[in-house]
């Protein structure tokens, strides 16, 4: 019999589950304060919903053996967008929803076999609001949620911001047949591929400058305006980013505008962002999101309300980050263990259960010692072994 969890699946111990729940609760409190309502999208969806119009490659999906093509959700956005565009179509827009749950992704391990990674996500979706006000709300909500987590300053959080439309505008001068190659070279951070494109020198130099352009929003926006002129897109992006400057600075979050940044999943078609912290050795992405109007449009074609933005936190990445250095402090802060209720003889079980009920009635945790204990000392020793706060021993 196999005694290990299947290919890549997680198997958490109680302390980790507690931390996950605590983090999810902290985030959920913030979502509720902002007027978001919880939904529970299905874990299983049709593959065509999960692939989100080709944005997510089929090889990244965990497929089920079933009569119809089904799979496990690789993220929460597409299932929520589907539900919002069908069952919740009659509700007034904008629709503010949040959800948390496990997501699944398939990948090929080093040994060549299929591995499945589970990820606990918690995130929000703001549907039916195409204006930049929704983007601003999302970024402010993200920062408020980060504030509730209490990340220590040593993690140096950075909010990486890009924009799909901005990149398209920058690429519009590139001849159409080279545009897709140029886009990939820019988003994959591949200056060698960019240099190899057959483009006029001036355009190649512009793209080489673009791949190195990132940093403080005001400076980057100024450079972009030199290239694109004062287009409305730049104005609205500048306004959105200016609105988050103060709360981000108060939290110690650096905002980095990177015109060529695009997230892994090709779901998005507007503002995109990723919140990255410095882990012990390597950068760790703890949240990502963006605008996905076209995805909503796939589910409710022809509607003027085909708009959506959202983000998701990677709860376990946050837990690992917070636990990596703060393990002893976290142990101190834990709730005390339960009492151990023991009796001297097997006949004392009834009395022990009544004693437990009293403790439970008073709001105290207590667990039953299922074997008789000779005396208080034996019960105390057992309680210490089990991590209980103490023993309540009942003489016969």
């Amino acid at each position: 019999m196999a005694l290990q969890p299947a290919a890549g699946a997680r198997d958490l111990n109680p302390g980790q589950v507690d931390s996950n729940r605590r983090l999810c609760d902290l985030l959920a409190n913030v979502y509720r304060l902002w007027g978001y309502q919880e939904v529970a999208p299905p874990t299983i969806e049709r593959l065509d919903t999960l692939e989100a119009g080709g944005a997510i490659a089929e090889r990244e999906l965990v497929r089920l053996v079933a009569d119809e093509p089904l799979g496990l959700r690789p993220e929460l956005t597409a299932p929520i967008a589907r539900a919002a565009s069908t069952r919740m179509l009659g509700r007034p827009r904008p629709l503010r929803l949040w959800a948390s749950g496990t997501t699944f992704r398939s990948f090929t391990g080093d040994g060549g076999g299929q591995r499945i990674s589970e990820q606990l996500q918690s995130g929000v979706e703001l549907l039916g609001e195409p204006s930049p006000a929704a983007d601003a709300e999302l970024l402010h909500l993200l920062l408020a949620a980060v504030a509730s987590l209490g990340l220590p300053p040593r993690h140096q959080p950075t909010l990486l911001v890009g924009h799909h439309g901005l990149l398209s505008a920058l690429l519009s001068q590139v001849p159409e047949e080279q545009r897709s190659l140029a886009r990939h070279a820019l988003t994959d951070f591949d200056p060698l591929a960019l240099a190899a494109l057959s483009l006029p020198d001036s355009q190649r130099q512009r793209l080489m400058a673009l791949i190195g352009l990132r940093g403080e929003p005001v400076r980057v926006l100024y450079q972009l305006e030199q290239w694109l002129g004062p287009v409305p897109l730049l104005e609205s992006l500048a306004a959105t980013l200016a609105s988050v400057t103060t709360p981000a600075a108060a939290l110690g979050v650096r905002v980095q505008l990177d015109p060529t940044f695009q997230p892994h999943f090709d779901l998005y078609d507007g503002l995109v962002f990723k919140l990255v912290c410095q882990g012990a050795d390597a950068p760790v992405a703890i949240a990502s999101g963006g605008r996905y109007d076209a995805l909503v449009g796939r589910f409710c074609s022809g509607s003027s309300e085909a708009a959506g933005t959202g983000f998701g936190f990677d709860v376990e990445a946050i837990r690992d980050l917070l636990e990596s250095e703060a393990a002893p402090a976290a142990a101190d802060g834990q709730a005390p263990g339960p009492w151990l209720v023991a009796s001297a003889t097997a006949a004392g079980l009834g009395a022990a259960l009544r004693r437990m009920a009293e403790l439970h009635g008073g709001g105290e945790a207590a667990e039953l010692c299922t074997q008789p204990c000779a005396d208080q000392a034996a019960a105390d020793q057992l309680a210490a072994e089990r991590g209980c706060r103490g023993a309540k021993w009942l003489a016969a």
Partner: protein
Amino acid sequence: MITANQRSPITVALAKGALLKDSVRRFQAAGLDFSDLLEEDNRLLMVPSRCGTARALLVRNADVPVYVAYGQAQLGVVGYDVLREHQLPVAQLVDLGFGGCRMAVAVKASSGYRRAADLPAHCRVASKFTRCAEAFFEQLDLPVELIHLTGSVELGPITGMSEAIVDLVATGRTLRDNGLVAIEDLFSSTARLIGHPLALRLDDGALQGLVERIATVQRPAHRPVQVPVR
């Protein structure tokens, strides 16, 4: 030079072997001195730069993109052949020009095969670079049986285990001495400066500055003779 407000010390993964000397030289010219790695009695695998603002990891060729892909090293130097074989999500930043060699199909000189398409279908091909070989023969529409070896690949045709090999050729001497001849090139390879994409996007200028200095510093006037890659 390296700014004081950088987010964390820069870590560079460097490959042991033929590329090491030139890699150290290029970083030295750009302001990071890892020449302690070249000391003959050095056994340290993690070496700080002389200025103390960066550190180098000394790893095997194929492990350079792994350390960079996982973000433990922000930069690395490795041959293009390794990047083609392992296909990891790293950014290829600069073609450093040294470590030139080519990936080629080679057969016994006496075999009579003159190009890869001459090989019989389902023949055996031995290689360290089975992914490169697989992609090449697939594009030729020639089904072959690949045999993965970890070194001394030339013995494949000599012992009769395989009809052909796919391997790196620098000067061609190893092939010649073993009675083999290269019949077709898959691609040519040089050393590349690679980077962790997310670290590059989070960069506040320090990393980009270093990359630009490495790209623009004069290539060493003294071009050492390449050790034949085996």
